[in-house]
């Protein structure tokens, strides 16, 4: 099951809001009482989503979270940007081949 924050991002994107700041636009809270996270504050101009509207984003949110993990894995495998610049300077084709291999081995959904 996707995180509430991811479903809200998907809902916001579908309604024309590209970025959601969870420090000011939307505040989520989980009181550790077994009921999970909920929307405590909604400060975006678009309407706060209903439970049904959030549930409708479940599949898209699952895909987004899976892709976020792929992005994280790729970022680590790419390595330090300074080292990459050195690789490019020495042999750009070898660098391109290595990056392609990382992407191929870690495909997005």
């Amino acid at each position, binding site marked *: 099951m996707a995180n509430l924050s991811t479903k809200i991002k998907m809902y916001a994107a579908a309604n024309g809001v590209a970025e959601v700041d969870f420090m000011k636009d939307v*505040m989520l809270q*989980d009181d*550790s009482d077994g009921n999970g996270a909920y929307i405590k504050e909604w400060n975006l101009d678009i309407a706060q989503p209903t439970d049904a509207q959030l549930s409708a984003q479940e599949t898209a949110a699952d895909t987004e979270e899976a892709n976020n993990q792929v992005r994280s894995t790729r*970022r680590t495998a790419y390595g330090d940007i300074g080292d990459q610049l050195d690789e490019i300077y020495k042999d750009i084709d070898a660098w391109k081949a290595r990056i392609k291999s990382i992407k191929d081995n870690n495909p997005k959904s």
Partner: protein
Amino acid sequence: MAIDKIQSQSINLADNFAFTGTVTGASGVNTPNFFVRLGTNQAGISNEAWTKISLAHEIYDSDNAFDSTTNYRFTVPSGKAGKYFFEFSIFGKAGDNDLNRIHCRLYKNGSTILAGAENDWTNQAFRNAQMYSSSGVIDLNVGDYIELYGKLFHTDDGQFLGSGNTLANTRLIGFRILE
């Protein structure tokens, strides 16, 4: 022989006294005081949500004022209003390189009163775990309650760490300041 009675006229308050023994009963005690921490890891932390820390393991709790079983909060007991010092820390963890940011806050009566440090490691490697601490003084009335909340920005398996020794990891310490 210890002095057990002093008449007020016999002491000049401008004099200096160099005690070499032990003076007892001359000061107050910083109660209530408590030290609580996570007993086990708190897993399944929702991404980007302020999450109450389930501080279930008491190291000490002088006035039994910390609820470590249900609400995980300190409530000021009767007759104990005043300024309180709090120190708090959270140790966040996620999957390999999946922890991007971490925040911690103290809530007073359900609203933020003290914010802890924060950082962003999104573009850095080795983002598996990180600990943050903060502290401050809060004026509290009888019945006011204090809770510790943390927020993790992660892409997988976010949790607050609670295992380890008594001084490390996720904790809340507090005591009343004598005035």
